[in-house]
């Protein structure tokens, strides 16, 4: 375990945040829009990754995000609650749903968890299409109010319909969420998550309550999925079940696998690189082809780089062919120098 000085890390982080705050002043409105969605997706993929540290590929993650979107939207639209209430409520509501989901998922792992979590997500998603009240069935919920910060002075007069203020809002929420998730990941709790996955018998033998910790990871992941959903709802101002369907889950899987889930930053890098790619592709081809590209990226990554991009540096370092090249270069250098 290598650690840089915490001071250096804090300075680097501060610089990055300052950079991100400055960015929207220099890019187009469209790219600001892309950035907002990227921030939301970063929260989504990081919370997904948290659950994978205990070995679970949670295929209900996108539906859970959708639930958060619906909760925040309905609370704001039908009950007039302000954003700073509805967003945490979305998080807590989805955390509660996660707790409920984790009961049947308790004893499952590997493939069974994969399929069971998908089943739970499907049941949830289908219930939105079936229940006109309050989910609006196929049409979903629309005319969702923009974030309302009353009665907080200063914030309540900001027009969050504009992309720039929403960008700042999304950025702030994302930074807070990531800090919390990072703290969990590097705490003893996070180490327990990874220990229980990599050496389950050993963890059990020193007294770890494995189902309890897996549930904890699931609930925390669900909470942040809910927050991502709430952020999305008030930005898009209209949501429906199709926004949280299988294609969205595919994208999530590709981000996570492409980036790699071993490190905290892996999936974040993955979603960022792929979002940039997506934006470029959208200019070059019609958007219908894009799921195909994602499918190919998923397959290629799984075949050639199963650890994701984050495993690339390690792979290159230990690559035998590269080592051979290096050795040859070194010996040739020696030849020249002795001549």
């Amino acid at each position, binding site marked *: 375990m290598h650690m840089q000085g915490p001071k250096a890390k804090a300075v680097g982080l501060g610089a990055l945040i300052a950079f991100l705050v400055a960015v929207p002043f220099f890019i187009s409105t469209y790219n600001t829009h892309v950035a907002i969605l990227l921030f939301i997706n970063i929260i989504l993929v990081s919370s997904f990754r948290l659950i994978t540290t205990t070995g679970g590929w949670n295929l209900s993650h996108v539906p859970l995000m959708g639930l958060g979107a619906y909760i925040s939207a309905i609370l704001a639209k039908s009950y007039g609650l302000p954003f700073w209430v509805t967003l945490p409520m979305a998080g807590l509501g989805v955390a509660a749903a996660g707790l409920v989901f984790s009961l049947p998922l308790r004893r499952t792992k590997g493939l069974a968890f994969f399929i069971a979590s998908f089943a739970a997500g499907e049941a949830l998603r289908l219930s939105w299409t079936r229940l006109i009240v309050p989910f609006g069935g196929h049409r979903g919920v629309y005319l969702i109010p923009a974030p309302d910060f009353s009665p907080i002075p200063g914030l309540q007069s900001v027009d969050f319909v504009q992309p720039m203020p929403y960008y700042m809002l999304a950025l702030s929420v994302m930074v807070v969420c990531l800090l919390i998730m990072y703290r969990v990941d590097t705490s003893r709790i996070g180490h327990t998550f990874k220990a229980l996955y990599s050496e389950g*018998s050993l963890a059990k033998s020193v007294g770890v309550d494995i189902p309890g910790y897996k549930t904890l990871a699931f609930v925390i992941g669900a909470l942040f999925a809910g927050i991502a959903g709430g952020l999305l709802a008030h930005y898009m101002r209209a949501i429906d079940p199709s926004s949280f369907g299988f294609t969205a889950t595919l994208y999530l899987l590709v981000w996570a696998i492409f980036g790699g889930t071993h490190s905290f930053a892996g999936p974040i890098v993955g979603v960022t690189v792929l979002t940039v790619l997506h934006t470029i592709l959208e200019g070059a081809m019609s958007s219908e082809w894009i799921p195909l590209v994602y499918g190919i990226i998923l397959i290629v990554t799984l075949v050639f780089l199963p650890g994701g991009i984050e495993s690339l540096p390690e792979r290159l370092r230990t690559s035998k062919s590269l080592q051979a090249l290096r050795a040859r270069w070194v010996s040739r250098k020696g030849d020249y120098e002795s001549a």
Partner: protein
Amino acid sequence: MSLLEVRNLSKHFGNLMAVDDVSFAVEEGEIRGLIGPNGAGKTTMFSLISGFLQPTKGEVIWRGENLAGKPPNTMVRKGIARTFQLTTLFKELTALENVIMACHLHTGTRLWQQFLRTGAVRQREKEIEQKAIGLLEKTGIAEARDETAQNLPHGHQRILGIAIALATKPSLLLLDEPVTGMNPTETEATMEVVRRLRNEGITILLVEHDMKAVMSTCDKLTVMSFGKKIAEGLPEEVRKNQAVVEAYLGTGYTHA
């Protein structure tokens, strides 16, 4: 009252009776050897006692309380710890980090305290590091503390497994083949650690094939074969027991 009593314990896997109606008791402060030929059911017995497997029948009585079927984390809390036959370690962590991890996993700080990295948490972490170093010293591998676990020589790995189990402050330690694969020097060093642990008040139940180590360290032996208990008693008595010799037919052990 015995510290641990196993009563009519059975474990069936379909038609296979891995453990068949076995009863014995281990007294506090003993070093008990559980021996028998391969396939006798010794590791299954360990898994039953430590909660990794649920018994088909019978009781596991710990200080008078029947704990049969409880999960491993409950057993650990009650004071029963185990090591594994195949060395199970956190491979990419150093020896010290392995023991720290075990200490961490075992002690409990509240979640919100974890978040804030309060002074109390930092203090606790320092204490844990000291404790971990102490355990490494007690088991004699302190000099390997910064080596990555998977790079340690086999003998050190097995001892590290013991140090990890000790992190849970057990009253009963189940050692599954602690000296298998070790040379005579390592074996004697490890058995010396086992004796020292007993002197500090930890009861030991160990499974081992190395008869020299078993004979020289155990107070009493329980012998299993094909899932059943076939003999029990002092090492010298058991050694001469006809049934035991027959069970081991072919292993060629007759003298120390």
